[in-house]
């Protein structure tokens, strides 16, 4: 089986601006990979390429074995994606959201029915199935969005700042869900601004000015840069960034 993510000298230019600069890395199956970087370092652009939304300028990348230049649609069917910005339709009920995304992912009617049942059970949300998503507490919304992103059993799940704004207990419960699906073999690529969460990852990369400046397990990185926490590692690397903040 091919690696969930493999890139080589992946580069994206917008005009004369090099957003992603010869990025090379691999992610293993079942790995929780923390994709860190300062605002504007090129994380979002890289993720857009890896999710089949944007073609690179040069270099290579394969996601779930599919080529990012020629097989963008196949990539989309192999991955799940969840972020703070794009998640569920607030005006639809829980059940309607499940049905909608099931349809988008190309599941059959029978599969959608089966998935709806198991998903509601697992989240203990049977009695909320016909509530509008807008009425749910934030923690529930995130758990629902997480489960829906996994509905089509993707090999690889992209989580873009999934825990932003939730209370510390809900944040940790969310991470336990991440651990659970990773232990079942799903690969996770996660971005976060909470540096203590970087410590939860198997390996992390830190992007600065379009390049991957550091890559390794939290322990390896802390040792290499002689720092006590990932926050200190991050600050020492990103402090000298020339690009001062991008999209978010």
């Amino acid at each position, binding site marked *: 089986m091919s690696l969930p993510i493999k890139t080589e000298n992946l580069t994206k230019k917008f005009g004369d601006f090099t957003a992603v600069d010869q990025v090379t890395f691999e992610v293993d199956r079942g790995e929780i990979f923390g994709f860190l*970087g*300062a*605002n*504007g370092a090129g994380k979002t652009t890289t993720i857009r390429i890896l999710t089949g939304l944007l073609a690179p300028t040069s270099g290579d990348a394969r996601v779930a074995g599919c080529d990012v230049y020629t097989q963008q649609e196949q990539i989309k069917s192999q991955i799940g994606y969840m972020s703070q910005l794009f998640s569920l339709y607030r005006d639809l009920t829980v059940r309607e959201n499940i049905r909608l995304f099931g349809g988008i992912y190309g599941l059959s009617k029978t599969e959608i029915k089966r998935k709806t049942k198991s998903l509601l059970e697992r989240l203990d949300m049977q009695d909320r199935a016909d509530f509008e998503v807008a009425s749910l*507490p*934030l*923690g*529930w919304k995130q*758990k629902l969005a997480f489960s829906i992103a996994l509905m089509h059993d993707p090999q690889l799940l992209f989580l873009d*700042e999934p825990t*932003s*704004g*939730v*209370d*510390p*207990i*809900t944040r*940790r*419960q969310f*991470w*336990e869900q991440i*651990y*659970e699906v*990773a*232990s079942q073999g799903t690969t996770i690529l996660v971005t976060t*601004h*909470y*540096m*203590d969460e970087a*410590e*939860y990852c198997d390996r992390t990369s830190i992007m600065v000015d379009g390049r991957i400046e550091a890559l390794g397990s*939290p*322990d390896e990185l802390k040792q290499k840069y002689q720092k006590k*926490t*990932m*926050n200190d590692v*991050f*600050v020492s690397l*990103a*402090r000298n*960034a020339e*690009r*001062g*903040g*991008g*999209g*978010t």
Partner: protein
Amino acid sequence: MALNHRASDIMDIVVEQVSKQYGSVMALESISLEVESDELFGLIGPDGAGKTTLFRILTTLLVPDQGKATVLGYDVVDDWQALRPKLGYMPGRFSLYPDLSVAENLEFFASIFGVKPADNYDLIRPIYRQLEPFESRRAHDLSGGMKQKLALSCALVHRPELLVLDEPTTGVDAVSRKEFWDMLKKLKNEGITIIVATPYMDEAARCERIGLIQEGSLLQVDTPQRIAESFDKNLVAVQVKDKYRALQLLKSHENTYAVHPFGDSIHVTLRDPGTSPEHLKVYLREKGLKEVRVTPISPTIEDRFMDLIQSKANVITY
């Protein structure tokens, strides 16, 4: 106009049993709070806790259903017109004019308060200086960090007595967040009272006092140190190779009260003060876990906050 304006020079904010309800949702439930003059006060809590509602009441943008709030000696309902020029407010959502340039935004906000950017330039200079090379760029085209700096400059351009910052660092990377807090410290030293909301626990330690807020209630208000110290249970850190399995095992252990992943370790609150770290270590080893280290630790603010949430909800239903 309140005759007793600034009768008390000690308290810049006095909130007495303020409640606010939206439909069936209690956004604020009988909140009481005092913030001293020249204090750097942090309101720490997740989305939906009521931080923004409280800030809107303090900045006269929203009227409380019940209770009373006084800011800089002015009643927020009766004296709103007198109060507003003394406030600097940076809302959570970027609220500058995207089509105006950096310089135009600053001039616009200055003109609203009847001043010129040059009048208080010494105050905003350390922040605005970094924007000067981009003065003619439209605000829309600025990076996240730059937008944040411009918004802060605009909130300060009339030299307010109280600065109200609603989640200024949300979604901002660790380096920019650190810089931002360094700036706040300088502003505080200029004699500006600051009240700031944040969902990041690690920022709490940078405030002089903090209030922990959850579901419309203030759970605790004190100095960061005293809040951490008020955690009154037995806390240990477990370091282990297979963290996911250790989490499950620790949760099913009869003497653990709370088990949370915490950076590179797992924080475990022991139910029985008699359970020793050694006991937990033996237990995990017997279950086949390797490289187990268990050490008693001092609690952090986050430990205390989680304990308060847990005690309050007793059972977290989601």
